[in-house]
């Protein structure tokens, strides 16, 4: 990527934050009942004020705010995890699901929907979270045990386990055709019907994991120079890699638990962020998170409105709208 678009953090950080607030306010206004930005702002800031419409307060606070915050957090989490994995594996193709989180989450959610496992109240999200973490831990464990202790081995094991798990999911769907629609809808991902419970469950682990990844920025920078160089700089390779995998997987699993499998954001947002902030992870992790939050918020707003009252699965939309944009950006950015 060329350096001609590179901006200072003092410019892009406030610009993205303001953009995020603006898009969030617009997003809070769209839906079955449309609210103007000023109505939204009043409902948010002075819910008991004399000029505030009571229904607007109900719509904003009870129906839309949690969903908007959740979409932003999930977008931020997927993008931050994607940026970390792209750096750690030194490949621009990596995304948050590259070492098996998606396959594990899909199998967990499928088993929960079919009633094979149960975790009390929040069965499907919890099963997805547990499935994602188990899959990643299995991949990591296999790699450690095999002695082929490298990022490449981790990638290959992740690809193999993902294939196996998605084959199992396909088989389960075929054998249980009554539940096929529900499983498929979950796999496509989206925020339909998500509200405060999902936000309070997934928000804290996403934020904690992102903070950990930001803290791990310099080890990530060192790993991009190759494992041998990182070791010669005194980086304890296994500790660093384990911490990065743990943090990124916590974020990914929590995001997937809340929203199902939303592709593309985790791949594309870091590339977009790199265009203006460069490749050092101290800047790339927060910039990717902000870009990811913005993208997913826009995508979810569009998903709610394009064919209202029906909702589009947001994962389909991110790929349909984001894919062409990403291709255009790659050509224009002069990337490898």
């Amino acid at each position, binding site marked *: 990527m060329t350096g001609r678009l590179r901006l200072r953090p003092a410019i892009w950080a406030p610009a993205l934050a303001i953009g995020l607030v603006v898009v969030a306010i617009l997003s809070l206004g769209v839906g079955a009942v449309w609210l103007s930005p000023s109505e939204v702002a009043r409902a948010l800031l002075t819910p008991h004020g004399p000029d505030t419409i009571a229904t607007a307060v109900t719509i904003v606070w009870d129906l839309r705010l949690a969903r908007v915050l959740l979409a932003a957090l999930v977008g931020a989490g997927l993008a931050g995890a994607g940026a970390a994995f792209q750096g750690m594996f030194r490949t621009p193709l990596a995304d948050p699901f590259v070492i098996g989180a998606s396959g594990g989450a899909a199998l967990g959610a499928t088993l929960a929907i079919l009633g094979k496992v149960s975790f009390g109240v929040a069965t499907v999200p919890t099963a997805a979270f547990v499935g994602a973490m188990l899959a990643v831990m299995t991949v990591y464990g296999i790699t450690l045990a095999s002695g082929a202790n490298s990022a490449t081995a981790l990638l290959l094991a992740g690809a193999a386990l993902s294939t196996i798990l998605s084959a199992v999911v396909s088989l389960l769907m075929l054998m249980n055709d009554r539940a096929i629609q529900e499983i498929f809808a979950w796999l496509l991902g989206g925020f339909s019907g998500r509200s405060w419970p999902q936000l309070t469950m997934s928000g804290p682990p996403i934020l904690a994991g992102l903070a950990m990844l930001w803290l791990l920025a310099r080890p990530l*920078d060192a790993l991009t120079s190759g494992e041998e160089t990182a070791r010669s700089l*005194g980086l304890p390779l296994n500790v660093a890699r384990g911490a990065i995998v743990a943090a990124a997987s916590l974020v990914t699993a929590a995001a997937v638990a809340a929203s199902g499998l939303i592709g593309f954001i985790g791949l594309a947002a870091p590339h977009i962020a790199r265009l203006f902030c460069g490749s*050092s992870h101290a800047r790339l992790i927060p910039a990717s998170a902000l870009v990811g939050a913005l993208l997913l918020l826009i995508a979810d707003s569009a998903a709610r409105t394009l064919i209202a009252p029906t909702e589009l699965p947001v994962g389909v939309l991110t790929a349909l709208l984001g894919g062409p944009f990403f291709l255009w950006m790659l050509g224009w950015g002069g990337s490898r």
Partner: protein
Amino acid sequence: MTLWRGGDPAPPGGGGAGGEGALTAMNLRYNLGGRAILDHVQLQVQPGEVLALIGPNGAGKTTLLRALARLLRPLGGTVSLDGRDVWRMRPRPVARHMALAPQGAELWPLTVEQFVGLGRAPHRGWLMPLGSDDHAAVQAALERTGMTILRERPVTELSGGEQRRAILARALAQGPRVLLLDEPTAALDLKYQVAILGLARRLAHNDGLSVVITLHDLNQAAGVADRMALLSNGRVLAVGTPDEVLTAELIGATYGVPVSVCRHPLDGTPLITPLRGEG
């Protein structure tokens, strides 16, 4: 000039105040596929001297350098830094005392400044932001390698020679007592070959570093080294001054090419010339 000692007297977190930077390899052994890559290698480098590792391709130069750098665990023998076994030390203290400028570079589009800043991690810690003394060390390393003007550029957009200098700058930013250079002149044009080798000598002679340098060019090695070690099939065939090691007999036999030894017109160091029309 004296940044590596005077300007930055106690690197943050740097222990080993008595560390002078003597590096000793005792009886190093390493095998790969049943073949001995390192065969009972004994070597020592003292502060203030440049030791060149020479030998034919596959002689074990780079393997030896990696073993010295604590990147490759030998099957037998020890590497010790001021008498301490490096494998009994944690990686970070080792990296505060010893830096490697590797030959092959895997690059990611960090800016030169960010890339060189990685050399400060052993001092500052992996989770802490760099401080002003770290930035000073980075600027000094950039200056010494002539990279200051390129500091905002992504390392992926540099020429091969500029990338080699960025890697060397990162090693210098570590503020090491022992500097290991793997073929530092490869891919450099004549001007920077001379500059880098001159810098290696100044780092040893003026700043008191122990410098170990692998070179395939025997004449470059003769020009830079105080002592040299000739390796072949994982064994040290000879150690000594360039005059002692670079003899027509020894080099001819080791490389399998008849050579003649003449003298450098200015400093009288040996110059190796392959003899044409034979073999």
